[in-house]
């Protein structure tokens, strides 16, 4: 499973990890029914504590994206719905905008312009 962590993300680590996993599920890198690598392997690769990864996995389970099964590990239950997936991407977009000095209002205006162009 390919995960990307944002190096400038100010959010707590467990939220970043959850966002990375949510993004991977949303992008279809890992499909419903697939098993996630063990939390310990994820933690080692991401350079974070295993408990941090476990906390993100629990959050994602509470969101209904993951399923924990005894002896079978953690597997993907369903893909995030469109709104949740877009929320993650909008967040990324806002962060990128901030790097260029654009505010949320600028981005909203940009999206309105675009949708008018496309209409």
């Amino acid at each position: 499973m390919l995960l990307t962590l944002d190096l400038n993300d100010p959010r707590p680590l467990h939220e970043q990890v959850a966002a990375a996993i949510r993004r991977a599920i949303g992008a279809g890198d890992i499909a419903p029914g697939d098993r996630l690598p063990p939390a310990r392997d994820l933690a080692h690769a991401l350079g974070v504590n295993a408990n941090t990864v476990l906390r993100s996995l629990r959050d994602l389970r509470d969101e209904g994206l993951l399923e924990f099964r005894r002896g079978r590990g953690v597997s993907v239950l369903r893909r995030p719905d469109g709104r949740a997936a877009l929320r993650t991407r909008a967040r990324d977009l806002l962060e990128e905008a901030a790097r260029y000095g654009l505010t949320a209002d600028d981005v909203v205006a940009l999206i309105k312009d675009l949708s008018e162009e496309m209409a």
Partner: protein
Amino acid sequence: MTDPQDTSVTGFRIRFLLAAAAWAVLVAAVLVAVPLAFAGRLPDPLATHWGPSGRPDGSMAFAAFVLFTVALWAVVAGIGAGVAARGRTPVRRASRAWFCAGLAWAGAFTVVTQAFTIAANLDRGHWTRAAGLSWQVAVVVAAPIALGALGWLAGRRGPDVPSGPPQRGPLIDLDPGKRPVWVSTATAPWATRLALVALATAVALAGAALSGLFGGGWGAVVPLALVGVVGLAVSSVSVRVVPEALTVSVGPLRWPSRRVRLDHVEQAWVEERYPAQVGGWGYRGLPGRATIMIRGGECLVVRYTSGGRLAITVDDAETGAALLNALIARQQPSVER
């Protein structure tokens, strides 16, 4: 392939397969003809197993004995045919040499074992009076190895088609502000179960032997424990790629583990490999050309800058190879950017 050598290589492949088949048939013929020739002078059942003291301690009906040896050889030859018919074994010198060595060794071992079994039973009347074995054991070990060596030499003759250059697969777009990591595993649930059963049996036998219940169990404890430990080690593998390094770990404890700095990795690609091609499960082959075989199928292969290669059977190897190649390309901006 539009190689000009192609037709000669195909011809060689056919000749090689015919030679291997001829050896298989010859061994099978000996395995049937020798017992039948001496059938009148053998007891039925005949001794087929000798204890550590060199005295016979197990027997088998004559027909079962012949069928068993022939069936054993048929299985070996069948696996050999499967390996030789598909894949590149016949046209790659190193793999062909080891294939011939294995086939020669297995044939010699079956024939020599059968011959000594028959010789020990000859004119004995009853299997319990079969001759003991002593120096014959050394021959059973040595003769097949000698023939295997001959097979290895014979297998080295002929063409050597190098494996085609691996194609550079797609790369993954790298965002400079992001840290990409790839984590994947492969597991063999049957190996875990087998290992746990072996370990549990070893512990139970050790317990029984310690309590004096069944003193004869000690001999089995060490091999069973070994099977358990090795089985656990080959039950799973975990591969992690981060921008600095590639880490490969095996077993439930993720130990032993090997970390390779990414500037020592030259290229990565995906291959299909099966246990029959690499000689079974676990760490197969010599360092530099090794495969970590957990389950048949797709495999991540990395080539080091030193020229060595390591293949690991792991799920989603394509993504891993793409990330590795992208990270390597980013490290060397002067090359292909």
